[in-house]
């Protein structure tokens, strides 16, 4: 998805130049081949299967007090949302929600800065770059629970207390940073070095060229990195399990609820956390589109 986010400016500008590239391959110019209808059906089925179950739990979370875990819907109310934030037996939802948001914000900031710098570093080959690259890939594909246990044992051995803002923060970064850097690769590969050289020719310092040329040009990509940083941290589970210490983050709270809560509170929590995710996704994609639009109008005028 990274590449496509980065692709957005490219397609918008190139569309007017080469309309021919938008033509699909079809044996006959006008009609669609039968494969189109078959694949369109598959695609529709996939999207329904992707979103259908999620919508079921959103709908079921609005039942009243008689509500159960399955259809049919029993009444309509906000009972289970109130229950979620007031009942003690469902655990410390408010606190974990609070912690998860704070943690996600910290992770996002670090991810954007570190990924941007790493993106700059990887533009040129340097001695040992392959080691760093495969270290990153390793961090991405390593089983999260194993890494989490290792981090937990490491903190134990060093006599440090595991907590959400130390060990869990680091464990989450080992997950968000590889994604962030991969997105930066996609973004950087479309950055035209002539702009940077032009800045140097006009007497810009290295810092000025980064601040006045690179960051504004790469802004949509950086927003995409932020989106990855926030959502991957906010939903991270396996790596946090052994590293969060005594206070839960939200996914850990949801995990413990799946094991012992059998009321629609669980669905209500699912609805709340998904709303937060959707707000973040919407805001990020909206920002990217806005930047592109602003650029488009400035280029024309």
């Amino acid at each position, binding site marked *: 998805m*990274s590449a*496509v986010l980065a*692709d957005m400016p490219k*397609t918008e500008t190139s569309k007017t130049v080469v309309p021919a*590239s938008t033509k*699909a*391959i079809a*044996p006959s110019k006008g009609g*669609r*081949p039968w*494969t189109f209808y078959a*694949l369109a059906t*598959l*695609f529709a089925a*996939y*999207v329904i299967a992707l979103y259908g*179950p*999620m919508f*079921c*739990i959103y709908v079921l979370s609005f039942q009243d007090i008689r509500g159960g875990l*399955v*259809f049919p819907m029993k009444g309509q109310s906000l009972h289970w949302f109130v229950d979620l934030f007031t009942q003690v037996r469902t655990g410390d939802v408010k606190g974990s929600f609070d912690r998860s948001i704070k943690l996600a914000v910290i992770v996002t900031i670090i991810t954007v*800065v570190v990924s941007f*710098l*790493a993106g700059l570093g*990887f533009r040129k080959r*340097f001695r*040992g770059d*392959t080691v760093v*690259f495969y270290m990153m890939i390793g*961090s991405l*594909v*390593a089983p*999260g*629970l*194993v*890494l989490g*246990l*290792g*981090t937990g*044992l*490491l903190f134990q051995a060093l006599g440090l207390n595991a907590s959400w803002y130390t060990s869990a923060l680091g464990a989450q*970064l*080992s997950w968000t*940073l590889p994604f962030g850097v991969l997105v930066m*690769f996609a973004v950087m*590969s479309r950055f035209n070095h002539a702009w940077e050289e032009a800045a*140097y020719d006009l007497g810009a310092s290295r810092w000025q060229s980064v601040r006045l040329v690179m960051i504004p040009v790469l802004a949509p990509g950086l927003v995409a990195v932020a989106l*990855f940083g926030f959502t991957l941290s906010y*939903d991270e*589970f*396996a790596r946090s399990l052994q590293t969060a210490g005594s206070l839960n983050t939200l996914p850990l709270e*949801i*995990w413990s609820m*799946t094991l012992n809560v059998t009321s629609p509170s669980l669905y209500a929590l699912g609805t709340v*956390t*998904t709303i937060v995710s*959707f707000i973040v*996704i919407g805001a990020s*994609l909206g920002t990217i589109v806005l930047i592109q639009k602003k650029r488009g109008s400035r280029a024309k005028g």
Partner: protein
Amino acid sequence: MQPSQTPSRVNFAGWLYVSPLVLVLVPFFVAPILVVLAASFFATDGFGGLTPGFTLASYVEVLHSALTLKLYLATIKFTVLTWIFTLIIGFFVAYFLVFHVRNQLLAIGLFLLCTVPFWTSNIIRMISWIPLLGKEGLINQVLLAMGVIRQPLEILLFSDLAVVIAYVHQLTIFMIVPIFNSMARIDKKLIEAAIDAGASRLDIMRLIVVPMSKSGIALGTIFVVSIVMGDFFVVKVMSGGGSASVVSAFYEDVGVLQYPTAAASAVLLTLVLVAIVSLILRTVDIRQEITR
């Protein structure tokens, strides 16, 4: 860039830029892996205490246990099934978006529609199958009402089937994205030329599209295989405790403070994973693929 930079300056600048990344990955990826490796050779008092030393007892225990083989077979079964389904669905969804949707903005919109759930909670997406697959769930209700079945099907939820459904639901996106990327780079003129030369639809698929999306397929496979093999919570929740995988057994070991056994099994799993991933990497230069 500024002209006339010596190689040593380039090396220095490169390391300077990636140093923050390295400063995170060393303590939170390299060190934990080494700690787990060390712990696998330690002895335990059975109460979570580790005695530094060097013993292969944990490996002997893991390798001798009949359970280990069963766990690996179960994990491989889930991995292969998930891989097949995500590959088929992912390939054709990407193919549809790249080659059949004529409006490029629409294609990107539909692509984003597929990716949005990736940015939401996996756990929530998993439990959202409960109201559908449960014994009193929607699918059983519909089938009963239609008269297709007399008894509610019990194998829908808390079974291996449910585990595979949840995996495919979560991981198909990891196939779609890289395959979409490599397919989008295929020059459409190539296919038009093939059509002009009389190639059939199957020929185009077999001789052009599949070979040219190979790198995307390889990348997607790495993602799907490593996530399924490293997963424990989907297996635990969706099988209702009926099935186990290597990592869910690891989780149980950690729960009862059997750190050395857990660590030994984690080291073995990591070796298996590294072997599989490097086998796949032999077919594709991942770095060149990602950075170009």
